């Protein structure tokens, strides 16, 4: 028989169980507090470092485990099943690790990757500005040559881990056109750099989101990430190959949780003398959620596997996975919420949080519309 193996390799199964147990033990008790305050529990960072979640895609020589993107997807899914907000913080952290791994000099890797793995601080990649996130060339933050480096001026918004990042990667304009962007590592404490307010979100509550401000902020030349003019490539590769699969994996976790909640509620809620799971309308909704979950899993795992194989076509597969999984999460959580009837609107039931979280995942890491542009170009070009 010709073989096509859909089973995870054993190390990925161990990662899955570890992440699942970690989520239950360390993350679940924090969810209610995160919903209430909107604050990220910093006490979680050393715990995530200890179990190795922070260094999943970082080479072993820099303190990571180098387990790759399939393992990362599965870990984010398990964390996201319990808290999409914690998974979001983690996935954006991985984005910075991937950016430094892909574009950093040996000295930059030595300096920042071990610290990111140890959880000295969380990571982020700051692209989006008040002008928008999709229109990269429309950004207004500038970096102009100054003595020994660059002077940055401008601001970023909607930045995950804004207040927890110790040395965020920041994209700024150094010229015009697609070669007019550059990436910088800006260390916390650099004069002229300060995080702004904490932004309040309807979903992913507890994932730190905020602004970053740069006012004549002097960044030394050695903190240029990649060559000058490579910022657009760096941003697109990092968003496309780390950010999108990260959001897709979070959507998988939300889908898992939506199915869990829908099944649990429909089997325990009695109507007309029997559980509502006996009603065909409910069964159809459960089947729809399952279809959304399983199709998303196939797309996400395959895209991550392509990345681990070093395949160039992984970015398109990741866009497809992200678009499908986040839209599926919105559909599925709405169905799960409707299965709950009036209870679905009540804050005691987690299903409403899942719906809010799913809605936020749609625009993060590239909107559905951007995804459609990428996908249509892949066949029309």
């Amino acid at each position, binding site marked *: 028989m010709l073989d096509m193996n859909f089973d995870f390799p054993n190390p990925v199964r161990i990662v899955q*169980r570890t992440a699942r147990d970690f989520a239950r033990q360390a993350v679940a008790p924090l969810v209610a507090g995160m919903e209430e305050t909107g604050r990220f529990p910093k006490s979680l960072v050393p715990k995530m470092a200890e179990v190795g979640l922070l260094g999943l895609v970082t080479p072993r020589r820099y303190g990571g485990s180098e387990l790759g993107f399939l393992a990362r997807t599965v870990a984010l899914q398990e964390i996201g099943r319990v808290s999409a907000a914690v998974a979001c913080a983690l996935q954006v952290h991985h984005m910075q690790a991937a950016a430094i791994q892909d574009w950093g000099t040996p000295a930059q890797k030595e300096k920042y990757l071990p610290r990111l793995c140890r959880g000295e601080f969380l990571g982020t990649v700051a692209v989006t500005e008040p002008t928008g996130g999709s229109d990269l060339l429309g950004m207004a933050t500038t970096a102009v040559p100054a003595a020994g480096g660059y002077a940055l001026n401008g601001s970023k918004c909607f930045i995950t881990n804004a207040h927890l990042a110790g040395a965020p990667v920041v994209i700024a304009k150094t010229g015009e056109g697609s070669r007019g962007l550059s990436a910088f590592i800006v260390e916390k404490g650099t004069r002229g750099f300060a995080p702004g307010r904490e932004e309040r979100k309807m979903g992913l509550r507890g994932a730190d989101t905020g602004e970053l401000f740069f006012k004549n902020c002097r960044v030394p030349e050695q903190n240029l990430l990649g060559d000058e003019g490579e910022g657009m490539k760096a941003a697109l590769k990092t968003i496309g190959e780390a950010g999108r699969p990260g959001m897709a994996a979070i959507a998988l976790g939300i889908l898992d949780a939506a199915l869990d909640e829908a099944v649990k509620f429909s089997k325990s809620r009695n109507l007309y003398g029997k559980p509502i799971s006996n009603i065909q309308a409910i069964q159809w909704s459960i089947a729809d959620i399952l279809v959304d979950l399983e199709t998303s899993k196939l797309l996400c795992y395959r895209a991550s596997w392509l990345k681990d194989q070093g395949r160039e076509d992984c970015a398109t597969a990741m866009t497809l996975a992200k678009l499908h999984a986040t839209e599926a999460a919105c559909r599925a959580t709405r169905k799960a919420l409707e299965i709950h009837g009036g209870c679905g609107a009540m804050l005691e039931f987690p299903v409403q949080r899942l719906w809010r979280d799913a809605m936020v995942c749609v625009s993060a890491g590239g909107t559905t519309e951007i995804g459609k542009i990428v996908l249509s170009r892949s066949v029309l070009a």
Partner: protein
Amino acid sequence: MTMKTPSRRYIVCLKPVPDPSRFDKLRLDPETMLLRRGDVPQVVNPGDRHAIEAAVDLKKRFGGTIACLTMAPPDAREQLEEALAMGCDRACLLTDRAFAGADTLATARALAAAVRKLGRFDLILCGCYSADGSTGQVGPQLAELLGIPDLTHALSLRLQGRRLQARCGLQDGTAALEAGLPALVSLDPRANVPPLPPMRGISGALAKKIPAWSAADLGLAPAEVGLAGSPTRMLNVFTPAAGRKGEILQGSANEVAAQLLEKLRGEKILPARGGKGSS
């Protein structure tokens, strides 16, 4: 000149079992009356995780190396990989079609041969019992075959030179026991909290080779292992029929109480009316 103490060698025995969180999916094969293990993924027996953690803790405190062993089908490499991820240094898989159908004694015999093949050792650590068979016999039988003391249901361990001290759980309390090394200890699930296998441990385990040893490699004859070497024969597996008879009494509270009293007297659970001790 000081004598250098040789580094301590720990051996952990573990068993792959069907994931206990999915026991509801387990079925018996109607013909062989054995568990259909393929229906549910195998995991490291939860009780054995406590043995791994105890060994890792001893290694942290006193140095040394940990080898882990299992006698199982080839798929059990996965559970050995997990033990390596949790901190074991090497792993050996005892696998051979001839091992199939082994009872606890034949299993202990294969493990004893593997322990001898590994050479010098100081302490063997086991779980107290497996989540599937739950006999709790393999550890003590292994100790017996090796001619070493065994301490079961250990709640805490102390190593002092060549002496092992353990506080062991009993039905109604604990006992402080001491034994000379080499020894075997089985860990009570209350002894520790096994940590999650860290990601670096998982990727580190990938680089380690796991040798497979057959009965011949262990110097065991076919008659000593598997079903042939097992004095136990399973004749039947069945669920005992629940023998309770329910009866619902009808009437007012007083009437029901009177009926109940009468029935209990009739069954001689309470003394008859007017008898000694009644009011």
